[in-house]
């Protein structure tokens, strides 16, 4: 097996033990039982827009913070410096991924940790986006006017860039080569800056910049909500329960549905790579990909990712047809599918957190000894950190399992609840709304079981 194949999510070995069988059964049983309790307890009592009203608390003391330019200045500096670390360390640092800060910044601090934190506290990418920050600085010095109008492309370009990034991470086999990561960062930076210059900053960010679209969705899960006036000034900041922001209006479109499904399928694929099921698939296709040489690895993994994504999409659309059938109301498929797609986001987010739990808590600590010699040049900048050994205090198997199962179940409960409220808003009577939720419940239990079973599957060297 190629050495690259033993690395998971970008780079780095994985220490997690698969969840024990009895705990898996406990989690699975909990998911099913709580699902039915939710359906019975919240048996469709409200319909129309009332159904998706949620409690929120005004926090006027934060209006000043929301209007202050400083969070974005500080976030922008952190974002630009991090991008610089990825590029400089990627090109000039060690070629061993575990000794190169570019890998840590890209795959742990940005890809795993920023996503999880954004779900918990709010859209951090809005503050950190290095390209937006660079563009703002440049356009302050020399105002840039958009030369062209962006055609009506929805978020398809962002979906494409997101897929490309996921391919770099999971299917290219090159995510653990720091210089490849640096090249990707430079190319994407140039494309993004050029796109903003030609088509306008916000137009490009909202339709073509993969991470702005991604964190925009994740930020809806977070517990903060800012009301702005026409000029963009914050007039009020609200605290709301986690998840309910996903019920807010969202532009309808297959592009956005595909984006959300890709969020789910790429995460699942990351986990599936480490399971025996993937090994079997990989071996079954050997006659096709082996003759392709080094391209074979990329081919078989990309094929796996695309097949999984298409299956997820088809299953979702089929279930949505059933939801609409049971809801028995003539609704536009596209609008309804988009609205329900967002209710799956909690399942994706908690799976992400569960899957990356020990990665973020343990592997991230390996950056500390690297600070002594970040580029692998024999420097001694912080000799006291050189011998640092990561602490496993928060990542012993029992703690990891507990966190994983609890996270998965909580995410599932939030998703079922949101979907139920959404049905109330979409369909005319409470009974119809309730009826429409049975297929959705089956789908959500299915997705959650996939997440749990991946976490419980014996890990192979393929992951």
């Amino acid at each position, binding site marked *: *097996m190629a*050495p690259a194949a*033993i690395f998971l999510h970008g780079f780095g*070995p*994985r*220490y*997690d*033990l698969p969840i*024990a069988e*009895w*705990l898996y059964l*406990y*989690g699975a049983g*909990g998911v099913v039982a*709580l699902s039915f*309790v*939710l359906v019975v*307890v*919240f048996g469709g*009592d409200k319909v129309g827009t009332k159904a998706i009203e949620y409690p929120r608390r005004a926090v006027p003391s934060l209006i000043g913070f929301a209007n202050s330019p400083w969070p974005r200045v500080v976030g922008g500096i952190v974002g630009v410096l991090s991008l610089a670390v990825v590029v400089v360390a990627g090109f000039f640092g060690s070629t061993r991924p575990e000794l190169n800060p570019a890998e840590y910044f890209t795959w742990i601090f940005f890809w795993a940790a920023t996503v999880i934190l954004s779900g918990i506290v709010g859209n951090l990418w809005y503050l950190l986006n290095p390209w937006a920050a660079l563009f703002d600085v440049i356009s302050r010095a020399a105002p840039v006017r958009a030369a062209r109008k962006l055609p009506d492309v929805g978020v398809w370009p962002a979906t494409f860039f997101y897929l490309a990034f996921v391919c770099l991470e999971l299917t290219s086999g090159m995510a653990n080569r720091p210089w490849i990561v640096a090249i990707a960062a430079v190319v994407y930076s140039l494309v993004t800056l050029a796109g903003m210059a030609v088509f306008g900053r916000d137009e490009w960010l909202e339709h073509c910049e993969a991470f702005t679209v991604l964190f925009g969705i994740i930020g809806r899960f977070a517990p903060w909500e800012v009301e702005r006036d026409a000029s963009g000034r914050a007039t009020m900041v609200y605290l709301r329960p986690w998840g309910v922001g996903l019920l807010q209006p969202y532009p309808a479109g297959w592009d956005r549905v595909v984006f959300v499904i890709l969020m789910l399928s790429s995460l699942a694929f990351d986990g599936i790579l480490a399971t025996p099921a993937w090994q079997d698939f990989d071996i079954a296709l050997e006659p096709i990909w082996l003759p392709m040489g080094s391209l074979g690895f990329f081919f078989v993994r990309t094929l796996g990712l695309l097949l999984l994504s298409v299956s997820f999409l088809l299953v979702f659309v089929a279930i949505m047809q059933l939801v609409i059938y049971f809801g028995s109301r003539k609704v536009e498929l596209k609008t309804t599918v988009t609205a329900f797609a967002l209710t799956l986001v909690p399942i994706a987010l908690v799976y992400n957190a569960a899957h990356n739990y*020990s990665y973020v808590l343990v592997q991230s600590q390996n950056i500390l000894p690297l600070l002594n010699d970040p580029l692998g040049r024999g420097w001694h900048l912080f000799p006291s950190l050189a011998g640092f*050994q990561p602490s*496993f205090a928060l*990542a*012993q*198997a*029992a703690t990891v*399992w*507990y966190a994983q*199962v*609890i996270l998965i*179940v*909580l995410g599932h*409960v939030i998703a079922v*609840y949101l979907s139920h409220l959404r049905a109330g808003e979409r369909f005319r009577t409470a009974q119809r709304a309730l009826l429409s939720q049975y297929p959705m419940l089956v789908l959500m239990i299915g997705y959650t079981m996939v997440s749990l079973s991946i976490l419980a599957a014996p*890990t192979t*060297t393929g992951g």
Partner: protein
Amino acid sequence: MTRSRTAIVVVLVALFVVVGGVLIYANQSHGGQNVTINLTVTGASKMTPDNPSAHLNDEVTINIKSDTTGEVHLHGYDIPFDCTAGQVTSYTFKADKSGQFEIEWESTSTHLGFLVVS
């Protein structure tokens, strides 16, 4: 009405969380034994057995006999075994981290197996 329904769900979820915690705590292995693991590495590429295991807090002694000279590395615990062809190299340590830890032939990054600490 909605408030009391929400309370029912919150109580049930809390119950699930607490029972899960108790179950995990009750099922935790308490280890503390002395465990000796004998491993044989052939051709710098194959190890038997390839999935040795121990329990958390065991005092583990690993003896490695290799037919090739070179380093066998236990990741996670970060222990290097500098093997000399035909001789046994030993190391004793406390298994204070749980998980599965890769064992590699260091110079070629060849995967030899996992030490599972549960």
